[in-house]
């Protein structure tokens, strides 16, 4: 089942994506953000909160002078480590309590500071490598069922309820469980601390919460004889920090989009571009598969018209991910089944789009999102629409399959809703397992013509973006009909230029690592 598409156009789209990303990369290389610096501290081993619940990494970065900050938190913190001989966590606590202040160490020479930091960098990376090897060992010993990998969301607000729901979902056939975040978290400029039991529309992403569900799913994996993956959400103001915590707690996937926060959360674009880059470098090293957020183009506007924007965004996300050192197998590009069910031949369009992505990104674990926009209180019809979504997914060999819920428009799924949804997916995918390998598209038929049209329009869209530059194109509302100014939006005050001698030891180490892998 192959679409005959213009390979030349695909190549041209990739070239355009490179041209679009190149100037942004120059900007990224010359800047850092408060979240990048906080994640450097977290990676060194700083955690915890002050008596009034402010995370220690936030306190340390906020206390830096603009000059110190512009050279990177690692250097100032390293001076403290060298002078006091303390472990990072102990120094962090002393700084948070006000017992010590980094300004007191400003005259400590750079050399010993760098040396002592280097040792902690190696310790930190070894810890991440160990988690990565642990995952590889489990995947060999507890193999997953074949893709599409069934992905469900739990979202009670209470991490202990989430744990129960996650294990139940795994037992009902889920291969990936995502704990969705509390609805405001993407806009918090800090990561909450400790286990949490209250949230809105989801549960806070905290390192303690990651650990609680990871342990429960590890136990379930052993019982079930198949590894169950854990997912959380990085997009927002704390992308690099969530990437750090996820690496340490062996999450397997993270939602991480290069533009989602800008367009759909009004986060400053410069902040997002710098943050996505460092977070993806960490994701690459920790073996985490990213999931990009193209589904959002479809839920906020007409899905038929937005198809070229989805493809264009996939090219841009792929390019930014490559630039952060991510191999194709870790780039879960997004799409969604959101065409109006009343549209004649809508199913054909969905198949065209899904198959197009499959052929253009053969090495990527594509993430397919379920119908949400046209789901109503009619659960019976909803279940049926989900069945066609499941069929499209298995036919076109999608990799990560977010199971649609018959109660999508009604409530956070009940335990029973999730079980029904998984049964639906398992039934359709089993009964139609090799359907896509057995049929061929009619040459020049509706599906092929639609796919070609989407590719042509995506190339045109990328051309327009390349011509203006990505930041200007976003300002001109080229994506999702949303205009965002380069210096507007949330988190802009946390972006700053790197001074001469800026040092991010993790970025340095990860880049060297990548060089030695030749990738």
């Amino acid at each position, binding site marked *: 089942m192959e679409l005959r598409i213009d390979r030349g156009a695909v190549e041209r789209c990739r070239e355009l994506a490179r041209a679009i990303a190149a100037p942004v990369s120059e900007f990224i290389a010359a800047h850092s953000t408060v979240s990048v610096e906080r994640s450097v501290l977290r990676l060194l081993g700083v955690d915890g909160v002050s008596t009034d619940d402010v995370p220690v990494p936030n306190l340390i970065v906020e206390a830096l002078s603009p000059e110190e900050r512009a050279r990177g938190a690692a250097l100032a913190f390293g001076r403290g480590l060298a002078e006091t001989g303390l472990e990072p966590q102990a120094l962090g606590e002393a700084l948070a309590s006000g017992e010590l202040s980094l300004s007191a160490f400003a005259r400590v020479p750079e050399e010993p500071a760098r040396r002592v930091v280097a040792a902690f960098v190696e310790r930190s990376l070894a810890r991440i490598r160990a988690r990565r090897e642990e995952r590889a060992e489990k995947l060999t010993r507890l193999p997953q069922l074949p893709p599409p990998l069934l992905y469900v969301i739990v979202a009670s607000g209470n991490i202990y309820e989430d744990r129960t729901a996650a294990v139940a979902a795994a037992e009902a056939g889920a291969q990936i469980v995502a704990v969705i975040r509390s*609805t405001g978290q993407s806009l918090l400029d800090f990561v909450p601390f400790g286990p949490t039991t209250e949230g809105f*529309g989801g549960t806070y992403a905290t390192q303690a919460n990651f650990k609680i569900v990871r342990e429960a799913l590890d136990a379930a994996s052993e019982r079930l004889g198949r590894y169950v993956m854990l997912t959380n959400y990085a997009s927002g103001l704390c992308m690099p920090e969530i990437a750090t915590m996820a690496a340490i707690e062996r999450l397997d996937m993270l939602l991480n989009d290069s533009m989602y926060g800008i367009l759909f959360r*009004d986060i400053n674009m410069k902040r997002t571009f710098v943050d996505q880059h460092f977070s993806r470098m960490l994701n690459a090293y920790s073996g985490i598969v990213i999931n990009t957020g193209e589904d959002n183009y479809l839920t*906020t*506007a007409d899905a038929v018209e937005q198809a070229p924007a989805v493809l264009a965004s996939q090219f841009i996300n792929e390019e930014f991910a490559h630039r952060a050192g991510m191999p194709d197998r870790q780039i879960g590009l997004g799409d969604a089944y959101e065409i109006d069910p009343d549209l004649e031949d809508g199913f054909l369009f969905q198949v065209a789009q899904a198959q197009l992505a499959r052929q253009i990104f053969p090495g990527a674990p594509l993430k397919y999102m379920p119908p949400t926009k046209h789901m*109503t209180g009619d659960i019976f019809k909803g279940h049926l629409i989900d069945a066609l979504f499941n069929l499209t997914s298995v036919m076109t060999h999608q990799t990560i399959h977010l199971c649609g819920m018959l109660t999508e428009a009604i409530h956070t799924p009940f*335990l*029973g809703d999730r*079980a029904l949804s998984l049964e639906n997916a398992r039934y359709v995918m089993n009964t139609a397992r090799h359907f896509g390998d057995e049929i061929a598209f009619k040459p020049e038929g509706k599906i092929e013509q639609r796919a070609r049209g989407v590719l042509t329009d995506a190339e045109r869209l990328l051309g327009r973006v390349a011509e203006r530059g990505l930041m200007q194109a976003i300002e001109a509302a080229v994506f999702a009909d949303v205009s965002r100014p380069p210096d507007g939006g949330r988190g802009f005050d946390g972006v700053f230029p790197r001074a001469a001698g800026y040092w991010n030891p993790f970025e340095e180490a990860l880049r060297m690592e990548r060089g030695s892998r030749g990738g």
Partner: protein
Amino acid sequence: MGNLVKPYGDTVNDGKVQMSFTLPIPWSEAADEAARRLVGKMGFTGVQIVEGRPIADGFSFFVAYAATPQAIDTSTISVTSAKTHAMSMDEIDDLIRERVGRKLRIAGACIGTDAHTVGIDAILNMKGYKGDYGLERYRMFETFNLGSQVSVEEFVRFAKEKKIDALLASQVVTQKGSDVKNFTALAELLEAEGLRDEIVLCCGGPRVTNLMATELGYDAGFGRGTLPSEVAAFIATRMAQKIASAR
């Protein structure tokens, strides 16, 4: 005399309903019996558990058919709908031009921590929903879409500064009653600021009903499937009424 009705399966007054639920027990034949008795305790008769099976460790799922002895007198029920004025975009623009005589200023937002702008965007964005143009497209509306996660305080401040005529508050997330809390806070703050009487206050979301909205002190509530022109028609006619009664 009232008009008593019961659910209809295939015969008048058979009272047949279907339901499904999960019990936190492992499945067994005894679990089926537990489910059957539970439905009986709910007041149903002729209970049939047509499906019972395990869905996770320690959880079973059931599908039941049963008959209810209850009936409802429909003549005692009166629920008003905010969607009574079917009008086209041009008719609405004309109505505002003739009876208000100036553009109406409308602000919409997802209030509280809710980040789901799907509903408010469908109503306000030019493109609209299901081929029905959004309020931005109307010549006689000046619209402001404040987007998501707008605090109630911010929303009211905006309404005051911009002399807004109609506020549209949207809530998609309903977990733990957060929607009702936010809607209530907005209505109360408008009241406290002395703005309530001059503003047409509407709320919307998949779980919103007009009844709930009016109980919370809103002029109207719009639920799932609402078209932008239905909201537009309501605002235009309500504003025209306000002006007529002020004269």
